[in-house]
C-alpha cells in the first residue's frame, strides 16, 4: 500500500516528496522478491542503524515501511484504503485522513510543517466533492 506524502500527492495534496513509501504487511512475501527481480532491484536487510532498503536503479525511488504510527494494523487499514489506477495497474493508497492521523502521532518537525497543507487539502477535496 502506498503511504506517506506520495499517497497524499496521489490524492491531490500539493506536497513534495523524495520517494514513494510502500507499506508491506510482510516483507518476506514472495511477491516482493519476484517484483524486485523483474525490475532488476534487490533487497538490503536492516542493520543496527539502517532500516531495510531496496537497491538498484528503478526501485531506489521506493522506501520500505513496516510500521505506521498511530494507525491500525496493515490488514485493517487496507480495508479502507483507496484504489487508484496508475498506468495499467490499480494500487492501494492510504486515505489522506489516515496519513494525517499518522503524522499527528509522530509529530516530527517535518510533519509539523506539512500538516497544515494536508489538512487544507483534505478540506478542499471534501468541499470539492460536495460542490
Amino acid at each position, binding site marked *: 500500500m502506498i503511504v506517506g*506524502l*506520495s499517497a497524499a*500527492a*496521489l*490524492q*491531490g*495534496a*500539493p*506536497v*513534495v*516528496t*523524495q*520517494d*514513494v513509501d510502500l507499506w508491506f504487511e510482510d516483507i518476506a512475501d514472495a511477491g516482493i522478491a519476484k517484483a524486485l527481480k523483474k525490475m532488476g532491484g534487490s533487497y538490503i536487510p536492516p542493520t543496527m542503524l539502517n532500516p531495510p532498503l531496496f537497491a538498484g536503479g528503478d526501485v531506489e*525511488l521506493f522506501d520500505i515501511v513496516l510500521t505506521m504510527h498511530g494507525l491500525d494494523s496493515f490488514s485493517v487499514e487496507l480495508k479502507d484504503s483507496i484504489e*487508484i*489506477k*496508475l*498506468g495499467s495497474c490499480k494500487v492501494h493508497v492510504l486515505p489522506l485522513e489516515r496519513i494525517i492521523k499518522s503524522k499527528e502521532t509522530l509529530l516530527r518537525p517535518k510533519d509539523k510543517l506539512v500538516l*497544515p*497543507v494536508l489538512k*487544507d*487539502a483534505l*478540506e*478542499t*477535496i471534501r*468541499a*470539492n466533492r460536495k*460542490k
Partner: protein
Amino acid sequence: MYISSKKLKNICKHKGLKLGELLEKADVSKTAFYALVRKEDILPRSIRSIASALGESPSVFLEEESPEERKIKRLIKRMNAIVRRKPNLDRDNVWHTLLLLSERPVVRLRRGLTRGRKIDFH
C-alpha cells in the same frame, strides 16, 4: 447562432457521456439547457446589431476562450466558493489542491516527486 442538439448528442456519444451526465459535469440545469436549445439565436441582440452594422457575421469578431483559460476560470470560481465557505483555509493550499485534482493521479504524483527531487541550485 443556435445550439444543435444533434451535434451535441453526437459529441457526447463520441466521449462516452449521456446528455444528463454532461449537464451535471458542466453544472448546468436541465431547465437552463432546454431554454437555450429552444432559442433560435443564443447571441445577445446587441451582438447581432453590431455584426449587422458591420455587415459581417458575429463570428468575425468573436473569439473563443482556450480550454486552459476556461479551466483556470472554473477553478478560480470554485476556489473562491470554497474559501468563502471555509475562511480558515489557506488560499494557496486550496488553489494548488484544486489544480492537482484536475490532473490524473499519476501526474499529481509525478509533480510531487519532480519538485522533491530536482532541487538543483547553481
